[in-house]
């Protein structure tokens, strides 16, 4: 008896118009120039070495205290100004905040001796002073994202500048837990994995190594984003978003050697920030010195910085006004979707000295 395949295989019904769009968009991804980045109008306030302090003026200023963004040293900060309508910075300038962003830049071989203390004392501190001077404000709100949050927290604990509010998102503070394989962390802590020698020969950690490190921790083999693109390539908006996201994820920056050495040894290996043993220059870093209003944001689907790495900061600071917020997002999607702007505005609007508008 002959078997009719139609009985168990669903009919293949392709929409040919959709197919044409799908393949057209796919070829565009391959052939078109890279998407434009940086949409929100900005001006350069200060520049040192490769770092630039940008100012994004408020569309209509409603708050006296500006926001100062500190982003991670691992990636480029344009994820905060990703695309029109979903840009975090655009969202905040439209809500009436003056925004400053310190772009660390791309370190070269000559920057191999830049350590965390140099980044904090000679770059971040100067940039904050410049922003205060430029804005004419008496105080500042520091916003740190990912490792930028760790840097912002360390800076806030030794800062002489007037910091009214500190906002940190998806921030690693306690390095007891590690997102990757536990035996790697064990090997790292007992000295089987040692980055010192590699840093000595390379100077900086090359960007390909940085990318490989993140891949190794999250998913070493990663191709599903291409199949997702193939699946949804008929949707022009999705393709545009995919292109931007793909550009950002593959656009890693090298990590300054000395800073990576400190990060790996002092924070990852010895967890000195939690133990109050970290030194920046000749100053001991004690998070208890943070008295600013504090907002800590964690993402529930963050597979890179789990909640347990951020939560301890709540008990370590002296701030009287402190808020912890767990949002439904991933490590990157919090910034990518613009949700971060909403969360920041909701909290900061009452703490940024609203201006009396006529």
């Amino acid at each position, binding site marked *: 008896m002959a078997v009719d395949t139609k009985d168990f295989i669903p*009919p293949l*019904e392709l929409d040919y118009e959709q197919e044409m769009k799908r393949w057209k968009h796919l070829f565009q991804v391959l052939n078109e120039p890279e998407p434009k980045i940086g949409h929100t109008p900005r001006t350069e306030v200060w520049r040192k070495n490769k770092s630039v302090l940008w100012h994004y003026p408020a569309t209509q200023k409603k708050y006296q205290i500006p926001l100062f963004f500190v982003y991670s040293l691992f990636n480029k900060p344009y994820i905060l100004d990703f695309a029109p309508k979903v840009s975090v910075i655009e969202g905040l300038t439209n809500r009436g905040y003056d925004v400053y962003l310190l772009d660390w830049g791309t370190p070269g071989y000559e920057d191999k001796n830049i350590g965390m203390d140099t980044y904090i004392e000679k770059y971040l501190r100067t940039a904050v002073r410049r922003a205060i001077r430029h804005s004419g404000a008496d105080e500042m709100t520091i916003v740190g994202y990912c490792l930028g949050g760790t840097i912002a927290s360390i800076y806030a604990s030794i800062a002489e500048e007037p910091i009214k509010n500190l906002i940190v998102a998806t921030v690693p503070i306690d390095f007891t837990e590690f997102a990757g394989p536990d035996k790697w962390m064990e090997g790292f802590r007992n000295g*089987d994995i040692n980055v010192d020698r590699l840093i000595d*020969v390379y100077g900086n950690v090359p960007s390909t190594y940085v990318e490989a490190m993140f891949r190794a921790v999250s998913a070493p083999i990663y191709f599903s984003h291409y199949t997702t693109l193939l699946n949804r390539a008929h949707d022009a908006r999705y393709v545009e978003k995919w292109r931007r996201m793909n550009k950002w994820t593959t656009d890693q920056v090298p990590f300054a050697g000395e800073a990576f050495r400190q990060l790996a040894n002092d924070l990852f290996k010895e967890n000195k920030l939690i133990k109050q043993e970290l030194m920046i220059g000749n100053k001991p870093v004690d998070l208890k010195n943070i008295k600013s209003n504090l907002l800590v944001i964690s993402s529930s689907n963050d597979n890179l910085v789990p909640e347990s790495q951020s939560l301890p900061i709540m008990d370590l600071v002296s701030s009287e006004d402190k808020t912890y917020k767990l949002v439904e997002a991933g490590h990157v999607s919090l910034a990518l979707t613009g949700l971060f702007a909403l969360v920041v505005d909701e909290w900061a609007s009452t703490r940024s000295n609203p201006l009396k508008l006529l």
Partner: protein
Amino acid sequence: MSTKSSFDPYDSFKKYSEIWEKQINDFLFLLSNNNEFVKMSKVETDTHARYLEAFKKNQEAVAGVLNLPTKNDLANVTSLTIQTEEKIDSLEEKIWDIQDSLKSQSKEIESVIDVSKEIIKLTKQLKTELGKTKKELADSKNLKGELQEIRFELNKLNNLKEDLEILKSQFKNDHPIEPVLTGAGSNK
């Protein structure tokens, strides 16, 4: 009417790719999450580092012989540029301090000027008041003179009154009133 949904090959491919990806990554996780893998990676990174060290050392040696600048030389030059930038930054901050002190000084000067203006205004007012007082004093002097004149006139009037009184009494004494009988003149 058929209840079967249409077959989307892209959707199925996506789902399978995700499953494959997860399976491969889980396998790699199991493969790498052990002490032996960690120790092996240490041997490999050490070997890699040694190879690079030797390569760099030779590169530096060759560049030295051929008098070619290396990345280290460029890094040294760049550090000078960064030092210069830092010096310019610190100078700029000093200029800020000077600007700030100048601003505060000019504010102080402005406040002194304001006080001086007030003093000048007050002095002018006092001067006007003084003029008025002088005028009033002169008026009061005139009034005093006039009053004295009036007093003098009054005194004169008093004297006149007294004279009149005297005259009246003298007149009375010189012409005493004689008693006249009623009807005495009718007999003549």
